[in-house]
């Protein structure tokens, strides 16, 4: 799905937001599940996200739901600094794609092949995103 002409670009602006769409089944009491912040088995260790430098929370939501036809309860976000922070430092990459639909804002966060590290990082990012709150639709979702 990656555009073969471009290698993924390591993201370096620590303040850049990375948007995640949270599936409706992964939202309870206004809080996303930590599962929304770790790859599923089919993701091959790469958790997809949308770059804040290339899109915004609403556009990311519309792309996910209208363009790709997927479900979302809204847009949450972490930033590059939070992705890179210890004790589980990860790397985020800009990765524009053309399939299944053009998405110049596509990015991914690369996770290791270690369950404890993956779970720990997912929980830390969940806490960060939860504290930031849902970015789109505006306001916190109903509890």
């Amino acid at each position, binding site marked *: 799905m990656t555009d073969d002409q471009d290698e993924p670009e390591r993201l370096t602006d620590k303040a850049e937001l990375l948007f995640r769409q949270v599936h409706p089944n992964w939202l309870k009491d206004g809080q996303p599940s930590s*599962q929304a912040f770790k790859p*599923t088995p*089919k993701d091959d260790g790469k958790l997809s996200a949308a770059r804040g430098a290339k899109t915004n929370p609403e556009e990311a939501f519309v792309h996910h739901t209208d363009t790709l036809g997927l479900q979302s309860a809204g847009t949450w976000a972490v930033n590059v600094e939070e992705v890179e922070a210890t004790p589980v430092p990860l790397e985020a990459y800009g990765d524009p794609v053309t399939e299944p639909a053009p998405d110049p804002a596509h990015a991914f966060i690369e996770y290791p092949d270690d369950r404890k590290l993956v779970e720990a990082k997912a929980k830390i990012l969940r806490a960060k995103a939860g504290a930031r709150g849902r970015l789109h639709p505006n306001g916190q979702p109903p509890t």
Partner: protein
Amino acid sequence: MAPELAPFLALHFRGDRFDADAGMPVETLGELVAYRELVTEVARLVFLERNPDRQRVPKGFTDRLSLRLRQVAEGSAVPLLERPAPADVLPLDDEFDVARDLISEAIEAAATGQTIPAGFPSDALVHFNRLGQGLHDDESIELRAPNAASGPRYTQQVRKALLAGRSNYQRDATIVGWVTELDAERMRFHLRRSDGSIVPAPIDVVTFDEVKEALAPSGEGSQVSVSGVGVFDRTSDQLVRFDSVHELMAEEADVSVEDLIAASTVEAGWLDDDGAATDPAVLQRTTALLDAIVLQGIPTPRVFPVPDGGMQAEWTLGDREVSVTVEPGGTLYVISVNVVSGDSEDATVANDDVAEVLRLVVPDAS
């Protein structure tokens, strides 16, 4: 004409509550009052030590302190305390300046594991009880003297070290339990916690009706949440009693575990045409597990389906994010992560090992 104010001390509050938003949480302003009381008491004892022929300080003595708060420095929670410059006393002789410095030296000594300086009046140590009473474990107060680049940091650990001679200490506490006894004459009640321990607490005319309503035969009425100044045993750190109660509220009835799980049960293809249906055996095991956990007084979790047909219960417990994943294969995966410190612990346990699950979910109760 109002007297000119001179800097006395800057208190730099640190921790999530102070770093998250601008300004200071109002509930922490009590620390400024507690600090003033501590300075006043130390100054009083310094005066009496210097004047052994006197039994009391002179009239108007405490008026010389008259701490004022005109500004909170930007960037963090740093209230700047000032006082009228003492007109007829040299700085080295002023008991309040001396008290400020003695307090900072005592805190520095306690923070570095050293003996509290001999010049600090031991009778004043008890007044550290109120200072930092509401501090969270991740918080500190740095006491910075005028023109100093830094100062000693006061934390709950330092506070406990300073109160080491006492058998107990006070700090703010909130617990949930059931009312088992109400003494209308002595205006006290007993609260039973989920671990069976009894915590006595005072009531007043405001909280009396709430307590009376929660009292039921065999102590099986609705749960109440009690917040106030708790007294803790210094050795065990267990809550012994409440000395005062700020707030008492009936706990709302929780959604049943069965309802929670039913709301998280899914059909095949639920995750955008991916995702397995919830395994029926997982449903049963999750219900039994969460019934056992909630019975221990642990809050009901957020429950979510897992793509492989399992279920995951998640909690946010203070600084910790905790989850238990009920896996289709028959095991449980438990992980607890402190999102502030980064410390984590995980375990894959046999299905019926509730004790091991509880050890990770609520380690303080082990």
